[in-house]
């Protein structure tokens, strides 16, 4: 109990950072992923090829390595970032190819005829993306988007290594100072479980709303 009193505020603050990093990393990563998917869908061939290489490289390397390269290698090319912005940028980059692939799969699942119907009445491609392609791609993409967002919650612990003061960082400090490894990590597990449970509940509710008329329910 003393422990909680002593470390409680730090753990809560850490959890706050964890949620912040997760939320912003997910939003930016999803945004970048969507941009990549759209550029691959509409862009010229050479651009598709470059983006393909980007996807392969990021997917093919561990997040930890990417983060090290960004945080410790960045200054070599003049990219000097504090821990938090570096962590957010890292999460964004790490998540983007997965999100891009989820969006690509979603686009492919939209029946061509529904896009043709929009072209036939003279809608611009921008309107078609916003009004037809994106909403319809959510039928197949949304569960995967939520799923990957959940995976990302747990990637945030790696940010502790570049000293972002998130939950894992605080838990490590607590266990190093008190040698109470089991308790400290139990707290960590409980926080994460709560976070993931909340996200997946919200996700299910959101999914039901978005796909209301799109999936036949019998």
């Amino acid at each position, binding site marked *: 109990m003393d422990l909680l009193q002593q470390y409680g505020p730090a753990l809560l603050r850490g959890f706050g950072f964890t949620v912040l990093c997760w939320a912003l990393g997910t939003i930016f990563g999803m945004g970048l992923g969507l941009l990549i998917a759209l550029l691959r869908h509409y862009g010229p061939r050479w651009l598709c090829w470059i983006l393909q290489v980007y996807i392969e490289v990021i997917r093919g390397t561990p997040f930890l390595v990417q983060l090290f390269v960004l945080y410790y290698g960045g200054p070599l090319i003049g990219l000097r970032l504090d821990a938090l912005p570096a962590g957010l940028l890292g999460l964004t980059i790490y998540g983007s190819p997965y999100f891009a692939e989820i969006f690509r799969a979603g686009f492919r699942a939209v029946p061509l005829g529904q896009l043709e119907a929009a072209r*036939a009445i003279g809608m611009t491609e921008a309107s078609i993306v916003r009004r037809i392609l994106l909403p319809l791609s959510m039928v197949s993409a949304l569960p995967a988007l939520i799923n990957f967002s959940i995976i990302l919650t747990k990637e945030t612990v790696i940010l502790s290594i570049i000293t972002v003061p998130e939950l894992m960082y605080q838990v490590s400090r607590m266990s190093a100072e008190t040698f109470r490894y089991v308790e400290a990590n139990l707290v960590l597990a409980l926080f994460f479980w709560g976070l993931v449970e909340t996200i997946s509940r919200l996700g299910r509710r959101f999914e039901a709303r978005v796909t209301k008329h*799109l999936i036949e329910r019998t």
Partner: protein
Amino acid sequence: MQASAVEIQKVNKYYGPFHALKDVDLSVPAGKVTCLIGPSGSGKSTLLRCMNFLEEYDSGEIRIDGRLIGYDAPGRKMGGRALREMRRSIGMVFQQFNLWPHMSARENVAEGLLRVRGLPKAEASARAADALAKVGLADKMDNHPSRLSGGQQQRVAIARAIAMEPRLMLFDEPTSALDPELVGEVLTVMKTLASEGMTMVVVTHEMGFAAHVADRVAFMERGELVAADTPDRILHQPQDPRIQSFLRTYHERNSF
């Protein structure tokens, strides 16, 4: 001389090595109904889809009200804006309806009025309601496509096209995906449209519709336009053996 709404000259289309349209000539008179018939794979849907450039033709000319569609000059493709401009006045109805499932019937019809014609929301919605009333669906306006029968969905699709006030309507086998008992309601709407003087090009397997409603019937086979004439001369006194054999098969299949 009668004005042509669509003038097609020497149109060719290839899918790789496959020659899908071979020097097709056809003129579609304004205010009339032209039916395209022929065996499946004969190129009639491809030809129809070339008329609003959903399908790109490789050579020849297709003129809509005198204006070349898809190209600024032979070999030079038209810009997106000019093509969209032309498509606004060409309505299209698809075999699979292609309604947007996340929108109600009314929203489906209003979408083009909002995004393409730029009408204010209230007006777009009111016009959508009018168009839906015209196809007999005033009471189904707020239903989503999943809550409509095939025939009703196709009527919504027709309403979506006519709400844009097109000068030309293209129908790509509009009743082929429907259960037999639902075909009638769609054909009735199309007949009404025809009687109001809409220029229509209809790819169809409904020989009855072609015989009774069409002013001209064009027969296609293997990418060639074999003949285009009055329904009577194509359907009742065909000269070309290919048409005779097609109609024989059709009658055999539909007799019992």
